């Protein structure tokens, strides 16, 4: 009976809402496929998948402390998700969030190093300077890829991956030789105590970095849909030729997109240093930063490259990251399993228009049934 009511109801809904719901459905299916195949892998390798997921989601969503960790992880990957999404909106595959995030974190730690020497920076001012310097370094990093793309035609997938690796080794160089921690070889020097972001909930890892992340994410929504710059950016992404005929320069839109992406990743990297206890630093091998940029790609794809979708998908992926610790403790499953699930989700999202195909199939079947009735 539901089937006969459905078409009339969807026809009354506005098109953008139908599209949005379909996209939400696709993300939900991809998520289920990812978790299901993840469960199969756990089963094959001898783990209790049910216990793993129960401890993962139970702790990351239902436990109040666990949920603060979920939100604390949502903050950086929301921003790196914006980096990828703003790229896609301009027709780019900017997978350089990882390296830009490293540079953002490096900028913040350098300011922290200065703050131990210049007293005035050990304050809110230091936080602002650290954010600014981190973002500037990240923009520089993104701008290299932008210029290579626009002037030399270098594909951004190749250039940003190379820049990610170069950034990794530059930060390692700084960590080992310049901004090392004299009392703890496993990390760089930490931000001094007053140049840190306040915690939103005491004795957790959840800092004001989350507010920065949500504010910038909402700003990109405004930028993309309510400004001329954003309109030009999206128009160039949808059809660069048509945009050019309309007097828009796609090259300019690409550069804008790289810069906005650089700001987002820079905020993410600096925010990790300024607002994540207990280190307030970069750890050996960048282990506290590693992967946050790539997680952004998952976040953006699940969130349909839309800032509002990204806020929710960042919380979801943040929960996977936060819960993976509990999963490792309770079910013994190595926490890398979460990245496997992420990969499967992305591949599942690459299946074009699953729900559209289903809708099309149902429509045809219904029409056939009506024909047969006559």
């Amino acid at each position, binding site marked *: 009976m539901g089937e006969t009511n459905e078409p009339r109801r969807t026809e009354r809904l506005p098109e953008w809402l139908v599209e949005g719901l379909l996209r939400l459905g696709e993300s939900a299916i991809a998520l289920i496929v990812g978790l299901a195949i993840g469960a199969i892998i756990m089963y094959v390798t001898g783990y209790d998948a049910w216990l793993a997921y129960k401890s993962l989601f139970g702790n990351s969503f239902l436990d109040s402390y666990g949920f603060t960790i979920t939100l604390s992880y949502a903050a950086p990957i929301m921003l790196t998700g914006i980096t990828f999404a703003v790229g896609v909106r301009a027709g780019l595959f900017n997978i350089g969030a990882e390296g830009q995030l490293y540079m953002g974190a490096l900028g913040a730690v350098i300011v922290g190093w200065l703050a131990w020497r210049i007293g005035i920076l050990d304050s809110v001012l230091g936080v602002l300077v650290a954010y600014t310097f981190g973002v500037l370094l990240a923009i520089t990093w993104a701008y290299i890829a932008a210029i290579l793309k626009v002037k030399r035609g270098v594909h951004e997938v190749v250039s940003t*991956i190379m820049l990610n*690796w*170069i950034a990794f080794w530059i930060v390692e160089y700084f960590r080992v030789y310049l901004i090392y921690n004299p009392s703890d070889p496993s990390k760089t020097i930490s931000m001094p105590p007053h140049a840190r972001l306040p915690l939103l909930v005491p004795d957790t890892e959840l800092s004001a970095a989350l507010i920065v992340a949500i504010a910038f994410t909402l700003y990109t929504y405004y930028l993309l849909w309510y400004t001329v710059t954003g309109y030009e950016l999206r128009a160039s992404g949808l059809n660069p030729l048509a945009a050019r005929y309309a007097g828009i320069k796609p090259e300019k839109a690409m550069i804008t997109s790289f810069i906005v992406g650089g700001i987002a990743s820079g905020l993410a990297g600096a925010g990790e240093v300024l607002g994540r206890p207990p280190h307030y630093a970069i750890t050996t091998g960048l282990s506290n930063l590693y992967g946050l940029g790539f997680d952004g790609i998952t976040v953006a794809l699940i969130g349909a490259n839309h800032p509002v979708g990204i806020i929710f998908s960042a919380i979801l992926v943040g929960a996977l990251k936060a819960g993976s610790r509990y999963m490792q403790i309770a079910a013994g499953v190595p926490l890398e399993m979460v990245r496997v699930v992420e990969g499967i989700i*992305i*591949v599942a999202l*690459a299946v074009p228009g699953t729900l559209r195909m289903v809708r099309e199939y149902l429509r045809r079947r219904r029409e056939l049934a009506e024909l047969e009735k006559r």
Partner: protein
Amino acid sequence: MDAHVAWLFTVSVLNAMTPILLTALGEILAERAGIVNIGLEGIIMLGALFGVMAAEAAHGPLPGLLAGLAVGALIGLLHAWLTAYLRGDHIIPGVGINTLALGLVPFMLIVYWHSAGQHQVPDYARVPRVAGISPVTVFAIALAPIMWWILFRTSWGLAVRSVGENPEAADTVGIRVERTQAIATIIGASLAGLAGAYMSLDWLATITKEIAAGRGFIALALVVFSNWDPVRALGGAALFGFFDVLREWVKIMPSVKAVVPDTLLNTIPYLVTLAAVAGVLGKVRPPRHVGQPYKRE
């Protein structure tokens, strides 16, 4: 530099260029047919992983190399299904495969070998070498002219190139566009899988979670650098291999070590890749229909 050192250096360059060359040759074939696969990095990692598992299980290197090929072929099949048949995006599946590999390799290292980070390959599973040179290297170097011959001197090669240049025209003259693209993609991806198995079973004799270290993407850059020409890819791979080895060699030279820290020397292959792709690009021309889904009217 005496002859022995020169020979050692040459062998090192051959070692380092082999995986990049194999991967790039495969990707040239796929991109000539119009399919971009950025999941090469992940395929190398998974080829390396399952290569070791198969070689240890079967007590010999050959099943390991075949397993690498098979893993690549399977992922290529998935990629071809998503891109050629379902006409989906070319980049997203690759991103997914790379993410999957980034998780699965360290996961399996812990689950299968109970080791966090790396596993040494036992001697019985290593590929034997003749005069210090791996048979896989010989195969890779021989494959470059063979691939050129296939692409430019056989009718199937003509079909591949026409599908990548103008699928509508190819379709009109009766070439099966999707099937041609699928075969090219599967062969291409299987070569990346072989490159991975070569790295773990032959060159490095170990499997680590960062075994690929960007080589999949360096190979993608090499495809552009070579102007989608297998023979030029051979020269390019030698160049990349040279700088890769140079980095390792200057790192242990005391005179260099005192001036430039090793962390910065590690950036050499990536800087060279960027410079190569940025510097010579004016002259190259990609297949016209590369990376775009072919939608029949």
